[in-house]
C-alpha cells in the first residue's frame, strides 16, 4: 500500500460524481496531518445536454483550481500532473461515482429465504435495481420466466445457489433457464453473468453460460447454510458495475484512468468509512452512515467491523423522490411542516422536484417541504434497512433503531440546510436514535473521498475524520421505554474534575446542555423512571469521555417513535418548540 505521507507533496485530489452535482475535493498535508482544503462543484453532465461525465469534472476542477490558486489540470485536458515543487498537481487521485441510472439486475437463487436473500443483499449494496428474481419457489412456467428475463433486458444477471457441498442439479437447472434466455437476447446486448453459488459447479456453469456471455465468478456467497460471505462478490460486483456504466456513460473510462484505478461506487466508499469507524467505537454499539442523494439513499450500518449496507435507488431527493411519494401517505410528510400549506402546494412541489432535481428551495415554505421530504426518505430507507442489520445489533425496543455510538449523515438536503439546527432536527426526526449517540454531519460531502482514499493512505481517512471537516453536531441522549410523564432523567456533568449543576430532563421535548465543541466531560446519568439510555432499564451510571459538539449535549426526551400532534396549531407549536430548543427561531 502506498503511503502518500512518505512522499513529497502529500496531496490528494478526489472527484465525486453524483447524480446532480460533481465535486472536486483537495486534501493536503498541514503540519504532518491531512486536511481538507477546498472544493469545486459543477452540475453533473452524464446526460443532456453534454452527455459526457468529464465536462462536469473539468468544470469542478477549474473551480477548485481557482479556489486553491494551484494548477491541477495539465494542458492536455483531463490529466492531473504530479505534485511538484512549483505547487501544481496532486500526488494521488481518487474518484467516486453514483451518477448514472441504477443497473438493472436479474437475481437468481435456489431458495427465496437463503441464497436469493443473500444475492438480493449483495446487489442492494450498490446502485442496482432488481428487475426480476427467480428461485425454485417460483411458480411460473419456465418459459414465462425465460420470456420475462428477455423482456426486462437486464444489464446483469447474478446467479447464486447451493452450498459448496450442497445442491448442484437445481442450480444447473436454473442456469439452464438463463442459457435459454441468453440465447434469445442478441449477442451484443447479452448481460454478463456473475456466478456466486456452489464453487464445485464452476466448470459446469462455465460450459453452460461461458460461451453465451461474459461469465464472472466469485466465491460462494453462501458457502454453507449458516454463513454468508458477500465481501469478495461485492468487489467483483463493483467492478462489473463500473464496466456496465462505462459502456453507457461517456467519459467514465477516462475518469477511472485519471484516478489510476482508485475508483469506487460512492456507496462502497461510505461503507468503508462506516466499517472502519465501527472498529474504533465502544462495542456492542454500532456505527450508522446515511447518504441522502438526489437519486439514491444509502444506509450503511456496522457493528464491530461487520458491515451491512443497502442502496435505495427508488428513494432520493431528486429524480427518485417519486419512490418516497408512492410509499408515503401525505400526512407523514405534512406532519413535519410548520407552515399552513395546502396539500396541493406540497404535492405540486414534491412532484415537480423530480422533473428538475437540481432546483433549490428559495422560500421558507419550499424549504420546509424539502426538509419534510428528506426526513421521510431517510426514515423509509432506515426502516427498510433494519431487517438487514447485522445480528450483533441490539435493539432496546421493537421498531426502534439499534444502539448506535455514532451517526454520520451526508447529502446536500441535510448537510447544506441553511441552519445547523435544521440539519440536526432532520437527522433526529428521521433516524430517531436511542441511547447515547454522537451525530456527525458531512457538511462538505467528503465521506466518499475519505472512503476511496483509504487504500492509498488510511491516515487520510483518520486525519480528516478527526478534523473539523466533518462537523460534530453533538451527543444526543435519548431515553426509551415506558414512562409516566414528568422528569425522566437527572444528569450531572463533570468537567475537569468540577461537578456542574444537576439538570433534570422532563419528558416530551428537546433540551440542550451547553458543551463546547471538542471539550471532553464525564456525565452521570440517573433515570428517574423505568427508561433505558443504554445502561439497562431504569439503570444509571457514568458515561465517560463525552465530546462536545456544535449543539453541546442534546437530550431528546420526545419518546420513540416521535409523536407529532395532528392538528396544525399544535403541530406548529411543537415543531417550533423543538427548533427553539436547539437555538433556532
Amino acid at each position: 500500500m502506498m503511503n502518500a505521507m512518505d512522499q513529497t507533496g502529500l496531496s490528494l485530489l478526489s472527484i465525486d460524481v453524483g447524480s446532480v452535482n460533481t465535486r472536486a475535493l483537495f486534501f493536503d498535508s498541514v503540519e504532518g496531518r491531512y486536511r481538507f482544503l477546498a472544493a469545486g462543484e459543477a452540475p453533473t453532465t452524464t446526460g443532456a445536454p453534454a452527455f459526457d461525465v468529464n465536462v462536469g469534472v473539468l468544470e469542478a476542477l477549474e473551480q477548485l483550481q481557482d479556489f486553491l490558486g494551484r494548477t491541477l489540470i495539465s494542458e492536455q485536458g483531463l490529466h492531473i500532473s504530479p505534485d511538484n515543487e512549483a505547487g501544481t498537481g496532486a500526488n494521488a487521485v481518487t474518484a467516486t461515482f453514483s451518477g448514472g441510472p441504477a443497473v438493472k439486475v436479474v437475481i437468481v437463487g435456489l431458495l427465496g429465504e437463503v441464497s436469493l436473500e443473500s444475492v438480493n443483499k449483495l446487489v442492494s449494496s450498490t446502485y442496482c435495481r432488481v428487475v426480476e428474481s427467480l428461485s425454485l419457489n417460483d411458480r411460473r412456467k419456465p418459459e414465462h420466466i425465460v420470456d420475462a428475463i428477455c423482456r426486462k433486458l437486464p444489464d446483469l444477471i447474478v446467479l447464486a445457489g447451493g452450498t459448496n457441498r450442497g445442491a448442484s442439479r437445481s442450480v444447473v437447472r436454473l442456469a439452464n433457464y438463463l442459457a435459454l434466455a441468453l440465447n434469445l437476447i442478441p449477442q451484443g446486448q447479452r448481460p454478463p453473468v456473475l456466478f456466486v453459488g456452489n464453487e464445485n459447479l464452476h466448470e459446469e456453469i462455465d460450459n453452460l453460460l461461458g460461451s453465451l456471455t461474459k461469465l464472472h465468478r466469485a466465491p460462494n456467497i453462501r458457502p454453507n447454510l449458516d454463513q454468508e460471505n458477500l465481501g469478495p462478490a461485492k468487489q467483483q460486483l463493483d467492478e462489473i458495475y463500473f464496466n456496465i456504466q462505462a459502456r453507457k456513460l461517456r467519459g467514465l473510462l477516462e475518469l477511472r484512468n485519471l484516478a489510476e484505478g482508485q475508483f469506487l461506487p460512492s456507496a462502497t466508499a461510505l461503507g468503508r468509512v462506516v466499517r472502519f469507524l465501527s472498529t474504533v467505537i465502544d462495542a456492542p454499539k454500532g456505527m450508522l452512515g446515511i447518504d441522502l442523494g438526489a437519486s439514491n439513499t444509502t444506509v450503511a450500518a456496522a457493528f464491530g467491523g461487520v458491515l451491512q449496507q443497502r442502496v435505495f435507488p427508488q428513494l432520493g431527493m431528486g429524480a427518485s423522490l417519486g419512490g418516497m411519494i408512492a410509499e408515503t401517505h401525505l400526512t407523514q410528510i405534512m406532519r413535519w411542516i410548520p407552515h399552513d400549506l395546502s396539500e396541493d402546494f406540497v404535492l405540486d412541489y414534491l412532484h415537480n422536484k423530480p422533473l428538475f432535481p437540481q432546483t433549490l428551495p428559495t422560500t421558507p415554505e419550499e424549504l420546509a417541504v424539502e426538509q419534510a421530504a428528506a426526513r421521510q426518505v431517510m426514515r423509509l430507507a432506515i426502516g427498510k434497512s433494519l431487517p438487514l442489520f447485522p445480528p450483533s445489533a441490539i435493539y432496546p425496543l421493537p421498531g426502534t433503531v439499534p444502539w448506535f455510538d455514532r451517526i454520520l449523515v451526508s447529502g446536500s438536503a441535510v448537510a447544506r440546510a441553511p441552519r445547523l439546527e435544521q440539519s440536526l432536527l432532520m437527522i433526529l426526526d428521521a433516524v430517531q436514535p436511542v441511547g447515547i449517540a454522537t451525530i456527525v454531519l458531512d457538511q462538505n460531502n467528503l465521506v466518499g473521498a475519505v472512503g476511496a482514499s483509504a487504500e492509498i493512505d488510511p491516515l487520510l481517512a483518520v486525519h480528516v475524520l478527526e478534523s473539523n471537516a466533518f462537523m460534530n453536531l453533538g451527543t444526543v441522549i435519548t431515553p426509551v421505554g415506558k414512562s409516566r410523564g414528568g422528569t425522566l432523567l437527572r444528569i450531572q456533568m463533570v468537567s475537569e474534575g468540577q461537578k456542574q449543576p444537576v439538570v433534570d430532563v422532563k419528558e416530551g421535548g428537546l433540551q440542550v446542555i451547553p458543551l463546547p465543541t471538542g471539550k471532553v466531560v464525564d456525565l452521570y446519568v440517573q433515570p428517574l423512571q423505568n427508561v433505558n439510555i443504554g445502561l439497562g432499564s431504569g439503570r444509571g451510571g457514568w458515561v465517560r469521555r463525552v465530546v462536545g459538539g456544535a449543539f453541546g449535549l442534546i437530550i431528546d426526551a420526545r419518546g420513540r417513535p416521535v409523536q407529532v400532534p395532528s392538528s396544525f396549531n399544535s403541530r406548529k407549536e411543537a415543531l417550533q418548540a423543538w427548533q427553539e430548543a436547539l437555538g433556532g427561531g
Partner: protein
Amino acid sequence: MIAPISYIQPLTTLRRKRELPAEGVVLVNMGDTVHSGDAVARANIDSKHVILDAGRALGLSPDRATRLIQRLVGEKVDEGAIIAGRRGVGARQLRAPAAGTIAAISEGQVLLEVNDERTSLRARVPGRVVAMEPNLGVTIECVCAWVQGVWGNGGLADGFLQMVGESPSQVLTADQIDMSLRGTILLAGSCSQRQALDLAAQVPIRGLVLGSLAIRLLPVAQKMPYPIVVIEGFGKTAMNEDAFKLFTIHNGKPATLNAQQSDPVRGDRPEIIIPIKEAGSPPQPVAVQSFRIGLSVRILNGPNKGRIGEITALLPASTVYPSGLRALSAEVALPGGLQDSCPLANLELLG
C-alpha cells in the same frame, strides 16, 4: 456553468436517433420519408416461448436427449412436428405443441418461439431517414418548429393543433370540449378537471398539450388513451409566453405529439413537433451552452416559476434567499419591467 436547456424553436433542423433496445431488423431505407407512427425497426424481445424438455419426454438424460433433437435453431416447425426422438412406430417422440420457430437448444431443452410479437420501434418524429445503424436503428431529420415539455404520458399521435382560448393561462374545462375538436391536438394553459380529460377521450381528441396539470389528475392522465404533454410541470402554472406564441402562430396546422417519458441520461423529453415544409435547412439547435448575460431563461421554481426572462447579470457572490439558502445566482429581467434574482440551479436556458 453548463446549463440545462429547454428548446422552444420556431424553426430548426431536428435530428433524432431512434435505436432498438436490442439488435433486430431495420425496416426503412436511407432517404425514406417516415411518419411519426411508422415502424422503423423491430426486435423480438417480446416474443412468447414454450420450453420443450426432450430429456423428460424421451425418458433420457439431457446429453442423450440432445443427440435425438431433430431440429436446428432458426428452423420453423408446424404444430405436431417432431422435435426430438426416433422415427418409427411406437418410438417416444417430442412434438411441437404449436407452430413456431426453434429459438434455442440447451441441455436437452428446446425453446420454441410460438408467436412473433416483435417490438416495433416507431419513428416518433416525422421526417427523412438520414443515417442508418445496421440492426439497431436510424437517424431521422425533420425541419420543424419544436417545443419540449417536461412530462408525457407515453403516447404518440399526429393531429391538428387547436388552441383553447387566447391566453396562456386558459384553464381547460369540460364545457370547452365538443365534437368539433375530434381529431385535434388541444392546447391549454392548465387543467384541473377530471371531467375535461374524460370528455376529451370520448370525443376523441388526438392529443393534449398543457402548461401544467393538477397533480391529483396525474393517475388519470397516465391512463388516458391520447398522448398528453405538460410543458411547465404540475400545478396551475400557465404555459410560458414563448411556447404559447409559437403555438398561436401554428394554430390549425398539423403536428406530432410525442409524449415519451423523460430520460435525462438519454436526453429524451416529451415534445411537440410542427413540420415546416420548404423552409430550407435551418441550423440544428445549440447543444451545450453556459449561462451568459443576454440569454433567455425559464424559471423552474419559486414565485416566478414558468416565466421566461433574460439574464441581465451573473451575480459574483452567493445570494441569500428567503429560505436562508445561498446559491450562485443570476438577475433575470422579466416582461413588465420586473427583475428577479434566481439561483442558477433554478434556471434553464431556452434553446
